[in-house]
């Protein structure tokens, strides 16, 4: 029964850029037609999303086989989603992409909504990024944007609340199966809790508050002062160089704390995880050495680090 028949269509999740973009975990079933999922920190297993925001960038890039791949950025109040439109998309998405990139050239603001497939990829250096592949898109007005913001806020609060109630159970399927969560939810929550460790949900709450302000038309309270320096928009990781040296130390401590199963955490894993949190490899490497020198971490086996 499982091998025959068509695979059920996966639901689209209303999700903010912050929750999606912070994901560094994915899941692929072993069967040929099993869907793959990106698992967010809140434990959503996301195969398909419905996102919206300001189209900030969309640019074509020639690739070796002669075709053009468009890459774009969609900003919502919580952050940026990256998407790419390749050869495999439907004609209508491709056509709309070309139209949009022309329209964006004129400087006209564009609010875009898209239903897209999720994708996680790892660079050669080991950093994990999220990206989206649009299936269907359309230009929307501010009222539909407001609607999406309100709905997405609700869904995010539901996920936060589910995440909190999941903490009453141990992070394994056996314990979680005693909960009220569906199998799909259990799988996501268990995987997320094991991968991401302890979470601070405060910034998600702030995202929701800001989104609701905008949905209610209270733009004033949704406005924040301008950042001191604008990061270059081409930088894939929009917060990488903003971090202070203290942040990275906290991050490394945190990473070792969560991932240490008794033998320490290996160098590469620390680097990869720090990179996923927005710290460049070179900075992390330097910092680990510094922390080792100053006795914050020690190295029980070569390349393996523990907190002192």
């Amino acid at each position, binding site marked *: *029964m499982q091998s025959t028949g068509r695979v*059920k*269509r996966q*639901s*689209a999740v*209303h999700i903010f850029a912050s929750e999606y973009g912070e994901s560094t*975990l994915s899941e*692929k079933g*072993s069967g040929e037609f099993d869907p*793959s999922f990106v698992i967010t920190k809140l434990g959503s297993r996301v195969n398909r999303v419905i996102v919206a925001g*300001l189209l*900030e960038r969309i640019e074509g890039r020639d690739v070796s086989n002669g075709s053009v791949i468009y890459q774009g950025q969609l*900003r*919502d109040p919580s952050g940026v989603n990256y998407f790419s439109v390749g050869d495999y998309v439907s004609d*209508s998405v491709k056509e709309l992409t070309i139209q949009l990139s022309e329209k964006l050239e004129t400087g006209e*603001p564009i609010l875009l*909504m898209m*239903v897209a497939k999720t994708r996680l990829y790892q660079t050669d*250096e080991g950093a994990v990024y999220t990206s989206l592949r649009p299936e*269907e*898109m*359309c230009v*929307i007005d*501010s*009222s*539909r944007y*407001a*609607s999406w*913001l*309100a709905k997405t*806020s*609700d869904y995010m*609060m539901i996920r936060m609340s589910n995440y909190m109630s999941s903490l009453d159970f141990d992070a394994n*399927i056996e314990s979680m*199966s005693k909960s009220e969560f569906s199998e799909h939810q259990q799988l996501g929550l268990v*995987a997320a809790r*094991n991968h991401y460790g302890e979470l601070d949900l405060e910034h998600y*709450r702030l995202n929701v*508050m800001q989104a*609701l302000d*905008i*949905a*209610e*038309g209270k*733009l004033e309270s949704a*406005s924040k*002062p*301008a*950042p001191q320096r*604008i990061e*270059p*928009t*081409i*930088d894939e990781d929009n917060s990488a160089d903003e971090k202070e040296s203290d942040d990275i130390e906290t991050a490394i401590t945190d990473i070792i704390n969560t991932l240490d*199963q008794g033998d320490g955490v290996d*160098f590469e*894993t620390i680097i990869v995880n720090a990179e996923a949190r927005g710290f*460049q*490899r*070179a900075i992390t490497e330097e910092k680990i050495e510094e922390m080792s020198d100053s006795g914050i971490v020690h190295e029980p086996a070569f390349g393996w680090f523990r907190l002192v």
Partner: protein
Amino acid sequence: MSDDKYESHIKAVLSECPDADIDEVKASFKKYEEEFYIPPQDALRSIVRRFQGEKQTTSKSNDTNNSPRNTKKVKSLSELSGADRDVEIEVEIISHNVREQMIRGEEKKIAFGLIEDNPWDDGSERIRWEYKDWGPNSNITPGSVVRIEGASVNEYQGKMSLNINQGARIAILREGTRPVNAPGDPIDISSIPKDGYICVVGRVLSSREDQIHRKDGSGSLDVVRGRIADESGTIGFLSWEPFAHEIGSLIKIDGAQVRTFRETPELNFGRTTKIEPFHDANFADTEKLTSQNMKTVSQLTDGSRDVEIIVQITEWEKRSFTKDGVEKHLWSGQIADLTGRCRMSAWEELPIEANKLPLTVKLSGVRVRAWQGIPDITVDTAKQVEFLDTPPWDESINLEDHVVEVELTELTKSSSRVGITTKGTIVSVRDDSGIILRCVECRRVLRDGECASCGSSESQQDVRLRLVIDNGEDTASLLINKAASIKLTGLDEDTMAQKIESEGKMEFVQSLRDMMLGRVVKANGRTIVDEQGAMILADHAELDDDDPGLLATEVRAKWGVN
């Protein structure tokens, strides 16, 4: 609001683009905020881009230096050779079995199974090897992704496998997510899968001897048919072996085979099935279980038998047909209860007068067939029908045009239903929405100008919308008929045809998307649910978005976000 509320943002823009006109910059912020609901901090980058023009810088920091180790670190199993001794690789555990083995006179537990490389990369080719874990590490479970360090490669008769030696280290990168169901553990009747071998505990509600005649006429087989129940539900059974357990007795059945006839699962008891009396003083009694055996229209599934149900007959007519030269009669009509509508047919005349409708009846021991997804209750004898004076629900409800509101999730999990309404977010507007050509013979949509089933190319123009709706958990196809599509889009057939003619089909469908994608639609109609998923055939549909401001206020109140 003071005029300089954008001041700090304008400054930020000017520091990046010194040549920009300050008023233009201010006007841009105003426009983003007022027309597009984009607060200044979010609009900032777009505005900078605009004033910066096409200035681009590329900065990419690339410094990969591998920490020096003696370990051979590989991504793919294909990079390994038979001589490799200290290997590090990330894999997914596909299967994991533990067995005991005598090694040098000592009984040892070892684990073996299958692993696959490239565990993170979806869609890529994965290579699968066998492995042996001599530890064995207790933390390995199927489905988990692990990094194995210090493993060695074993090559035997050209077949490669991985040895996880006692000194090797295994780091769990992602815990196994596949739940394991132990055999011999009884499961709820409501959670019985569509096929496979299972174990249940239940009470016998009915049991009768029956015969199955071989199709080739070579004789017949004695079987026993009946139903068992627990508090979660009931299921029919068919025993190929003698079955002597009395009605009302509680039994444990291990190794029953589930077979699904049409849509309805049934237990088969055979030679290898173990049935024994079970003792549980707290198990629900026969009376309680029989009363819950009562079905509603929404619960009817194709192929079910021994159904008990109370329905109202709203339409009834006699039909005649000739079979083998003999004229036969069949009575059929519409029935309904509070959960929906469906059809009923009777092979014997029932005392029903058209002017007395609607009539409430209690049906017992009837069976269900389905035509085009709509359940049709078959009444074989008049004895199965008992007329009731009043319905068990509010008599004033007119069931003939009664529409039941059903959550999308429930619809996708129940059987096909009639007379429902549901809501969902539109997540797809299919490219074949709009004007289509149907085959005049079979009403199928023509593909490339030809009917796939009867080859005819004679066609008739029709209008329909094909959407996918979604509630964040489940999805369904939504097909909206001509009248409802015209009403929903506000475009009549001619206008649609003109638009398609002038803009092209693709642009036309995109205009439907611009109108509907991401919005909530409420649809009335019927459903067809099969192994392909749920399909809603709607004769009415309307966009049903809540006011965003109100919705936001609701969300605040619900979650206490202020």
